[in-house]
């Protein structure tokens, strides 16, 4: 597949510039004044609980969703006016499968090329390459309805690449897939990034965000709460370590732990202690606490939970 050399030439111009985007559904403000810039060749992630406004933001980037206020430019063209021209250079991997069930794997790719106005003869070689890229060559003539979930997702990704896009937008690309497929998809996405394709994705898998993304925003309730590289986000946390205690922690012990640490919280039967000095707390707890003590480095998941809270989103 073609290298995206022109992206390097224009390395200065951001591929996405969003300013003060607002999206209202009746009384509900799905996106509440967000601004961000995505550089070419970056993998940019939107992290957030369900209902945070991630999918709506992606739809706005593709001109599929209107916005009520703000400014949005993609590939140096304004939205919504240039939506069709922008979509010609973007590939979308949607959250829900919408492959054509009446067609085979290969027919799905050829047909999708038609929707971009690409002629069958012009994409023959590319279809073969994409089948190989997504490891579906052996399934080329199988009907889509006979494919497993993982194969369908791989085909959806291959389909999103049919127009040789400058940007690939992925809405929860590995949700519901087994670890083998997930790792395979991560490897392919890394390959795309290495070729200079800009990746924009939403996820609520911390591991996925940590592995793939150069830059992350954490969203909740339509707002951007934090932005930075995964390392930056973790380092900005007020603690380097987390000690988790399972069992019955008395109010007295909890109060002491809170005074010794940066932050401590109770959730169900567990207590989470966020600290820069884990050794002191572990010493204080000693051996015979009668509790299960788990000590680990703070990670992206802690950033996420500290920012968005532990309440369920339903």
């Amino acid at each position, binding site marked *: 597949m073609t290298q995206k050399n022109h992206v390097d030439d224009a390395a200065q111009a951001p591929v996405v510039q969003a300013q003060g985007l607002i999206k209202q559904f009746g009384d509900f403000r799905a996106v509440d004044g967000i601004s961000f810039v995505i550089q070419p060749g970056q993998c940019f992630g939107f992290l957030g609980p369900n209902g945070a406004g991630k999918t709506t933001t992606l739809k706005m980037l593709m001109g599929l*969703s209107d916005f009520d206020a703000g400014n949005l430019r993609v590939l140096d063209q304004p939205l919504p006016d240039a939506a*069709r021209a922008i979509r010609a250079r*973007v590939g979308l991997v*949607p959250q*829900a499968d919408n492959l054509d069930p009446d067609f085979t794997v290969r027919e799905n790719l050829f047909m999708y090329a038609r929707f971009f106005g690409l002629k069958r003869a012009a994409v023959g070689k590319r279809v073969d390459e994409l089948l190989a890229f997504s490891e579906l060559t052996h399934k080329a003539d199988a009907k889509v309805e006979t494919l497993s979930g993982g194969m369908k997702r791989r085909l959806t990704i291959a389909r999103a690449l049919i127009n040789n896009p400058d940007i690939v937008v992925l809405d929860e690309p590995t949700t519901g897939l087994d670890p083998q497929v997930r790792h395979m998809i991560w490897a392919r996405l890394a390959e795309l990034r290495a070729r200079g394709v800009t990746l924009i994705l939403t996820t609520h898998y911390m591991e996925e965000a940590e592995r793939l993304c150069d830059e992350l925003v954490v969203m909740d309730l339509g707002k951007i709460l934090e932005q930075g590289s995964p390392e930056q986000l973790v380092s900005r946390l007020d603690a380097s370590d987390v000690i988790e205690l399972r069992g019955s922690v008395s109010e007295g012990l909890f109060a002491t732990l809170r005074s010794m640490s940066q932050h401590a919280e109770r959730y169900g039967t567990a207590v989470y202690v966020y600290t820069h000095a884990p050794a002191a707390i572990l010493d204080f707890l000693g051996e015979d606490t009668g509790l299960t003590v788990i000590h680990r480095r703070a990670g992206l998941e802690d950033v996420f939970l500290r920012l968005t809270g532990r309440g369920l989103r339903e």
Partner: protein
Amino acid sequence: MRRSIWALPRLRLIAMALIARNFLVWRKLMGPAIALNFGEPLIYLLGLGLGLGHLVGTVGGLPYLTFLASGVVASSAMTTVSFEGMYSVFTRMVPQKTYDAMMATPMDVDDIILGEVIWAALKGLISAAAILLVAAFLGAVPGGFAALWALPVVFLMGLAFAGPAIIMSAVAGSYDFFNYYFVLVVTPMFMLSGVFFPLDSFPPALQVGVQFLPLTHAVEVIRPLIVGQPVAQLGLHLWVLAGFAGLSFYGAVAMVRRRLWV
């Protein structure tokens, strides 16, 4: 920043991509489709035409089989187009999410609906052509080869019926909703537009009422073309059909935008 669902639709060639897609699916399921296209009219024409025709004799100077065949060419196009515009379009729009996939490409709702309207009219054309062929074999096409002029009119009436059916799809919550349209629109037209009986057998008030039904106008053109008689008020009938086609296309684009735009 908000697009208006009422913005005038644009007609673009990329709509052909949707027609190509639907054709490819149709080709895979061609056997049963053709069987239905030929089998159903054959049974209708033989059963009603010969059975009822035996009792009726001639209608408006035509053998009943000829009268019936020329009407069924039109009514069958209506039914085919309505089914396509409702059940098939709804399937692609809602459970199958085919339109969502297309809208992530440079295709817009305008292109999708233009393609669907033309495709539905083409399917109506296929079923009408099948009936014309069956009728010719039964000797019920006195117009000879000139009867082929009925086909472009069938295509136009197909366009006129596709838009309303797609509007129904755009507002439907489920397939059951289409029952209303069949009971309130398709079946009354089927019975009242002169397919089975001449209009002058109705009470005068009803004769005026049926002038507002597009199928009446389609039958008024298609029947004389098939039986080889001059068409009265050709321009009026074609303008009515074209008006239905244009307005309902606009309405269909707007309603599908309302449903699919977020």
